[in-house]
């Protein structure tokens, strides 16, 4: 199907919630690169700040007005984007969602492209268990230890990532205690402040887990400022796998991150569009892989060796249950 598509060119749109994080920038770069390969024109537009839902919907409507032939959007957490979906449906323009796999209850979406946050967090938890066990020279199943969670602002993202992680702990190292779980508002600076205080209450915290890397990095800084040594006295793990985190990981200043390869996720989005143009069947959920990135497999991750072909997946709901049913 691809071959014949290459012949024709398309004008398509891509709408991140805002371009204020490297995650979205990387995804845009992947999408751009793939679109360029195909000879398409990709227009990227985003509101100035995340959370400006009305501006988000308007941006989509404006791109539709500009005549895009397909569009992919990244709704963040709420169903406000339904309005945008319906606007696209009304015009018969195929619409996709990326970095988001919770289907809307109204409107037709070609496919939802994204990774399983619960599952990813769960596997990160498994690795955290290993780290603690390693520190105390025992096994994950037996080890005790203390773990602190830095939450993002309340949302499906923070919920899935916290709950998945807690499920992973329960499964892999049930004797590890979660000594606290506090919001650090997705910010490195708040992560630093909250972790500093957490260490006053619980000086023996073994692992800081952040719903995002930035908060975990802040926590690592706070602990280091108090004289603790990362990867010896304590560990810091988080989710996202952005370049600044990978740099720190390479420098031994971070413990592990959940790499979801936003660049290739962006490529996947364009591929899904192409498949749709070609009349191919596209799964409702296109699940992209996520992988725990550690100093050991960092090179492989960067090279793309850990990337696996996206598969048809399951929708994600904020329901306290795993995204992918366990058998």
């Amino acid at each position, binding site marked *: 199907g691809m071959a014949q598509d290459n012949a024709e060119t398309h004008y398509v749109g891509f709408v991140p919630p805002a371009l204020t994080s490297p995650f979205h920038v990387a995804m845009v770069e992947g999408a751009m690169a793939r679109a360029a390969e195909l000879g398409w024109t990709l227009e990227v537009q985003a509101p100035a700040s995340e959370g400006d839902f009305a501006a988000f919907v308007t941006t989509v409507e404006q791109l539709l007005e500009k005549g895009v032939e397909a569009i992919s959007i990244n709704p963040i*957490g709420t169903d406000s984007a*339904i309005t945008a979906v319906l606007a696209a449906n009304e015009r018969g323009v195929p619409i996709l969602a990326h970095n988001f796999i919770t289907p809307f209850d109204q409107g037709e979406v070609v496919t939802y492209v994204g990774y399983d946050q619960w599952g990813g967090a769960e596997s990160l938890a498994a690795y955290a268990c290993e780290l603690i066990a390693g520190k105390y020279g025992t096994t994950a199943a037996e080890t005790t230890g203390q773990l602190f969670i830095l939450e993002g602002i309340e949302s499906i993202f923070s919920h899935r990532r916290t709950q998945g992680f807690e499920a992973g702990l329960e499964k892999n190292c049930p004797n590890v205690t979660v000594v606290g779980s506090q919001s650090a508002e997705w910010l490195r600076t708040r992560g630093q402040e909250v972790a500093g205080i957490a260490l006053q209450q619980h000086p023996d915290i073994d692992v800081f887990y952040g719903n995002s890397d930035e908060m975990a990095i802040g926590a690592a800084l706070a602990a280091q400022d108090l004289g603790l040594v990362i990867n010896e006295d304590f560990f810091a793990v988080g989710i996202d796998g952005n370049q600044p985190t990978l740099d720190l990981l390479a420098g031994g200043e971070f413990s592990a991150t959940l790499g979801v390869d936003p660049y290739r996720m962006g490529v996947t989005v364009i591929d899904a569009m192409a498949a749709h143009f070609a009349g191919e069947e596209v799964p409702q959920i296109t699940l992209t892989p996520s992988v725990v990135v550690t100093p050991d497999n960092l090179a492989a991750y960067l090279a793309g060796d850990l990337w696996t072909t996206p598969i048809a997946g399951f929708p994600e709901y904020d329901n306290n249950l795993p995204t992918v049913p366990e058998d």
Partner: protein
Amino acid sequence: MAAESGVESRGQSTNLLGTLRRVIAGLGPFLVFLFLFVLLLILSPAFRSPTSLGLLLLESAAIAIVACGQTFVIMIGGIDLSVEAMVSFSGVTAAILIAGSNIAGGQVANGIPAIYAVLIAVSAGLLIGLFQGMLITLFRMNPLIVTLGFRSILLGISLVWTNGAGINIVREGITDTITSRIPLVGDWNLPMPFVIALTIYAISWVILRHMRFGRYAYAIGGNGEEASRLSGINVNRIKIMIYGISGLLAAIAGVLVMSRLRSGAYQNGTNMTLISVAAVVIGGTPLTGGKGGVWGTMIGVFIIRIVEQGMVYLSVPSNAKEIVVGVIIVLAVLLDVIRQGEITWLRLGKRRVET
């Protein structure tokens, strides 16, 4: 608008001439808008469509309503930093009542008809606004602090009630009506939210220009509080009511945003405080109050919106948007200042003398 601040010279008491001068002087921000509008018409073919123009009106409606309330508050020399939180809060409240559930606690009740939900949300906005007004007047608290505090409280409540997710609704009844469009000729239509905004502006204009209450608002602003009190005006009551109006209008805007997005979420009001204040000031009402008016504010909203939308039509790279917005805001006001001839050193000797 700016008109009211123009100093007339002694010779020009001729009414026609004076009126004309006032109108032109008052056009200041409007000319800036017109310039941007025409520029965009020329540069972007996509903008030249009924839908695009409709979108401009639609996107201006909610923030215009918020800014209308902010105009009242700034008119009396106050400020309301709680508006964006009120937009979120009212949307969340209405959505929860309509959906009969919230994310945090699942089903809380059977949903009630949208019209009641909306009325409850809007009344809550009014009451909370009045309450803030009471703290500010009766306890002589600083409006900035009070409304900042309520900003936190209202956002916090929205967050707790929704657990950070949006509460989905299906449009029905009033929520459907207020998001509809009124067809005009051909493809042209008027988005209902804008019609609502326009109605609110017309009423506000009548209140401010032709009713006692509004005249007192002008009197209280611009440092006239003590003089107003001595003239027997119940200053406290006016101020309390004005904070109530701001709460009410922000809550109405909140319902509009929620209906448009079909979702009540704590982020629904994002950025609205700053934008509303900027629109008021760009529109010619100074932060000290006492002059200006709502139509100027509407122009202020349009200027901000056309800049934002223009960048999408012109495919300005998204991360450069902030810069462009900033530069245009500064330039727009600079142009207006220069046009008004306010700058002494640019035209020495012609200086207007303040009294």
